[in-house]
């Protein structure tokens, strides 16, 4: 039993060190801060600002972005809220007396 726990702890330490090494290597591959060739500075921003009104029909550019260009992102947010609430309903809701009786009679 004692040996097992030691094996597990050694294995977890090795795993953690490996993951930390992989993540630090990934950080070293990131582009330099403020470099003009960075992927975040591209034509997408200009396109949103210049053609946003004409393509989405919305004056509020934020609404045009979150509900037209990136609508599935907002869908994911709504589904996340829905899932959280369904979890709370499943855990916290006390059914009324009538509902339980109906289920028992069936």
């Amino acid at each position, binding site marked *: 039993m004692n040996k097992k726990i030691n094996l597990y702890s050694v294995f977890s330490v090795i795993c953690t060190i490996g993951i930390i090494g992989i993540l630090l290597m990934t950080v070293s591959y990131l582009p330099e801060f403020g470099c003009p060739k960075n992927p975040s500075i591209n034509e997408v921003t200009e396109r949103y600002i210049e053609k946003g009104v004409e393509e989405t*029909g*919305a*004056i*509020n550019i934020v609404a045009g972005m979150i509900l037209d260009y990136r*609508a599935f992102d*907002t*869908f994911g947010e*709504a589904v996340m809220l829905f899932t959280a609430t369904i979890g709370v309903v499943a855990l916290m809701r006390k059914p009324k007396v009538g509902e339980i009786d109906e289920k028992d009679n069936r």
Partner: protein
Amino acid sequence: MKKIIGDDEILNTITEIITPFIFVLGIYIILNGHISPGGGFSGGTVLGAGLILYGEAFNIHEIRKLFDFNIFTKAISFSLLFYGCAKGYSFITGAANIDSNIPLGTPGKILSGGLILPLNIAIGIIVACIIYGLYALFYEGDI
């Protein structure tokens, strides 16, 4: 003379005056989401906060007369379903280079922006139901 249901008379009186304005403000924020700052998330939060205030000042059974668990689940599910279907249609036709036949209208009017207004309404319904639903579930154990 109205019958006062809750305990606190000051809270009840203020709530009776202020609740319609909160609901109108929330609906205004949702419906004008594509013209002015706002949208479904903020407007839905205002609506849910108004419902919470009403349920806190008066008895929560007053809200259950028009908003119970059945309506709660149906509103959230159908809003999500509508959102997925409408935006899925829009994305599929856009990716396949087919005209989706959704009119954009003139920018600046209420009825413009294609699918943005109905999607804002769907998001507003979901957020309002969830804000109030979490309060009712944790406070009372049932919606």
